[in-house]
């Protein structure tokens, strides 16, 4: 995790106040090399064996069969996803090598894909992967507070960190497409929407105690319908044939 910490340190460093003489915006200078080059570590090296279990292998073959044989490599992303799921939520170098072998393509082609997509975690993560959306709509609806709440509730960790007990990893993510129910975060595969600091804490506590809270809007409303009550389509919908001439009823 030192890589992540390093990146964060750089982020923090670049947040120092700038002299306002020039209206200038910079992006954080991140030390990207640690993230986009693989280095063997005791927990992540090509000697660690990885293979699909029987069930995943069957699914993998089913996925591969969707594509013409010479375009087998099109299955790279779904297979990496399968691998990541089987490998406790992260894509180790062995997972990538295995997928390359399975698809009969050079390993670098798989590395390229796995490093391109941020949803492939190339470092181990905690049991529950909390992705807090901080893109504009969520941010306008208070995602900063949600993020801070999540971080402090999990023991004062920072985005990118894993809690000491290995239960939670928190990251910031870009728009998840649930803006109408902002703010939101994702835990594992489920969306938790319409969050408040309180409901966020409740959800985290539930996960910590091994329960699985109900996904979806936490405000009680139905999906993304108007939270202040319906303003249109309030009358009873006409039943079938209601306004038809007699003979057509």
């Amino acid at each position: 995790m030192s890589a992540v910490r390093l990146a964060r340190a750089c982020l923090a460093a670049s947040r120092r106040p700038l002299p306002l003489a020039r209206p200038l915006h910079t992006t954080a200078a991140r030390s990207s090399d640690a993230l986009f080059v693989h280095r063997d570590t005791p927990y992540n090296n090509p000697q660690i064996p990885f293979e699909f279990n029987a069930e995943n292998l069957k699914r993998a073959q089913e996925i591969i069969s969707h594509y013409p044989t010479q375009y087998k490599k099109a299955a790279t992303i779904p297979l990496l996803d399968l691998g990541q799921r089987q490998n406790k939520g992260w894509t180790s170098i062995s997972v990538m090598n295995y997928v390359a072998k399975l698809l009969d393509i050079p390993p670098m082609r798989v590395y390229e894909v796995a490093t391109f997509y941020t949803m492939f975690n190339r470092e181990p993560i905690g049991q529950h992967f909390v992705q807090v959306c901080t893109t504009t709509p969520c941010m306008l609806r208070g995602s900063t507070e949600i993020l801070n709440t999540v971080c402090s509730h999990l023991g004062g960790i920072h985005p990118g960190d894993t809690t000491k007990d290995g239960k939670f990893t928190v990251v910031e993510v870009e728009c998840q497409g649930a803006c109408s129910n902002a703010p939101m975060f994702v835990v594992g595969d489920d969306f938790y929407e319409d969050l408040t600091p309180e409901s966020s804490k409740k959800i985290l506590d539930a996960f910590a105690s091994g329960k699985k809270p109900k996904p979806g809007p936490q405000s009680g409303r139905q999906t993304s319908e108007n939270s202040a009550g319906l303003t249109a389509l309030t009358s009873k919908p006409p039943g079938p044939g209601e306004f038809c001439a007699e003979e057509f009823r």
Partner: protein
Amino acid sequence: MLRLSSSSSRRLLNAASSVVRTVESRGFATTGARRADITLTVDGKEVTVPQGSALIQACEAAGASIPRFCYHDRLAIAGNCRMCLVEVQRSPKPVASCAMPAMPGSVVFTNTPLVHEAREGVMEFLLANHPLDCPICDQGGECDLQDQSMRYGSDRTRFHEIAGKRAVEDKNLGPLVKTSMNRCIQCTRCVRFANEVAGVEDLGTSGRGNDMQIGMYVEKTLASELSGNIVDLCPVGALTSKPYAFHARPWELKKTESVDVLDAVGSNIRVDSRGVQVMRVQPRVNDDVNEEWISDKTRYAYDGLRFQRLTVPLIRQGDRFVSATWEDALNAVAQGLQASGAKGDEIKAVAGALADTESLVALKDFINRLGSDNLTTDQPRGDEPPVHGVDIRSNYLFNSTIPALDKADAILLVGTNPRHEAAVLNSRIRRNWLNTQMEVGLIGEQIDAIYRYDHIGTDLKAVDQFVAGKGAFAEKFKAAKNPLIIVGSAVAEHADGAAVFKALSTFVQKNKDRLLTPEWNGFSVLQREASRTAAYDIGFVPSTKSKGVKAKFVYLLNADNITPDSIPENAFVVYQGHHGDAGAELADVCLPGAAYTEKGSTWVNTEGRAQHGRAAVPPPGASREDWKIIRAVSEVAGVTLPYDSILTLRDRMWEIAPSTVKYDETEPTTLDISAAGLASMAGLSAGKASGVPFRKPITNFYQTDPISRASVTMAQCTRSFVDQANIADDAKLAAAQTA
């Protein structure tokens, strides 16, 4: 003139879908149908280009120069640098001309304010993350980014980097390519080259956006015989040459056009020298031979020219060499010849791989004048007449010629590993294999090829089987329209050589309609030594009579691949050459000759193409051009050769073998003569099959001759690519050295 192969237009069409092709996905396209021409207007000028050309090619054809970084006409199109923007009428935005097919009737402008502004903008973005380290960058003076920013960029910066520029870790690609990845502009030329041409599919891009970087993700070296070419391709100083690092600036170098002699391809090179030193070797474009690639040995073995050189004549006294004057040395040779009492075939000449044609002719004349026919080469079985004979050129030439490799649709390799014997030629096989449904079959030791092949077998039995039409590959070969058989030079050195040539030439005779037509000659021999073709051309081969005669006087001309036991004890041995290698060790007298960069000489490549090598630097010390040495020896030996200048010597070459002075041409053998050649081989008596498998003649690509054996760079390559030394250790070592 616009050169546009059908494959490049095909590449254009494929480019969008697959920037980087993998082994598995060979394109579907087969023979490129000839496309119609289209006409468009560029800067008010009408141009006609083949349909499927990129717009950038059309602009070039119209004489407009378009700046570019990622586009390269021998690689797939990536379209990611955006430097080539041009304005097209009725298109709302400037378009990237390299990624845009030329359309009939379109009106293109390359010199409008919009285009200027677009280029300036792209330049500004490229420079935003590019370090300002030109003074300490080896690319300085030949950097596309430098040149184009002078020409198209803004003259001041608006970018004030408070948070610093992007920083990328350097990669360790091995002893040849030095990286400075901060400078990379992500044009992906190196990636495309490695994947398409060199066939090492380990190089790629990792990460994305601002974090994208070029590398292999895991730590390993770029193990390819062609890796040096990415140094040339890199438009900036991200990839530079490690051995050449900080040695010279391009404007200090004298450039001499020459040919490479470290294999038999005859790659065209440019020797860059400063003073008396060769500083580097660069490729020169020749579409018929090496296109614009050269192998790493060609490029990097030049430091071997500085070490282990023979610079003064040496005479053996007891167990050591004493330096001598030319006069003494020549007299010593004459005396040695006399004292040895050698008569007739007891006088033996051995020519090595680096002997130029002029000195071969001179040596042959000299030895003949002494009454001997014992002219041998230093390859295994070099002291017997070659099985294929030398009377008919097509029996030992690469008859199909190198460009024809793009047209073949089935290739059978016999006892050869083109990857090591002719690395550049091998990349053509890969290209053909990638772009078409061409099939490769191999008889001989398994090789680590850059294409997939059917392994038919390892010995004569497999040849017989193939010839009998048995096996899957034989079937494919039968169906091919342009089948090609490539026989390695090592086959002729093999115990079953005669049987192989007999079987294959009978096969070619039987399938004349496909293998030997006015358009196609499908029987090729791949030589691996630069001097071999010339030696055969001029008849530098032993007679049947001379075989087995115990020599009393041996003249080694650049012969360094000999084994000591091939030289009889008590024989008087003269070594003429430029390096103190295996040959010089055996000598009684050493005469220092010139290396290929130090003499104007003729080299005949495996196709029979005669090319000029030119002197870039003077020979060191007292060494002399080789033919002059032989001329001088002949005089003291009392059989003066009748030529005093290189021109009269070349007249003599014209008399013996006109093809050796018809420069830059391959002279195709006529059908009748080829057929006669085949008939002569088909009539060989094969003897009993030994059943010994065909071995690869080259075990270490990086060290095959005295120059590359003396080269430190090649020794490092051997260490990291052949011995697979751990690169992590190397990195630690380098760190320790700099600390």
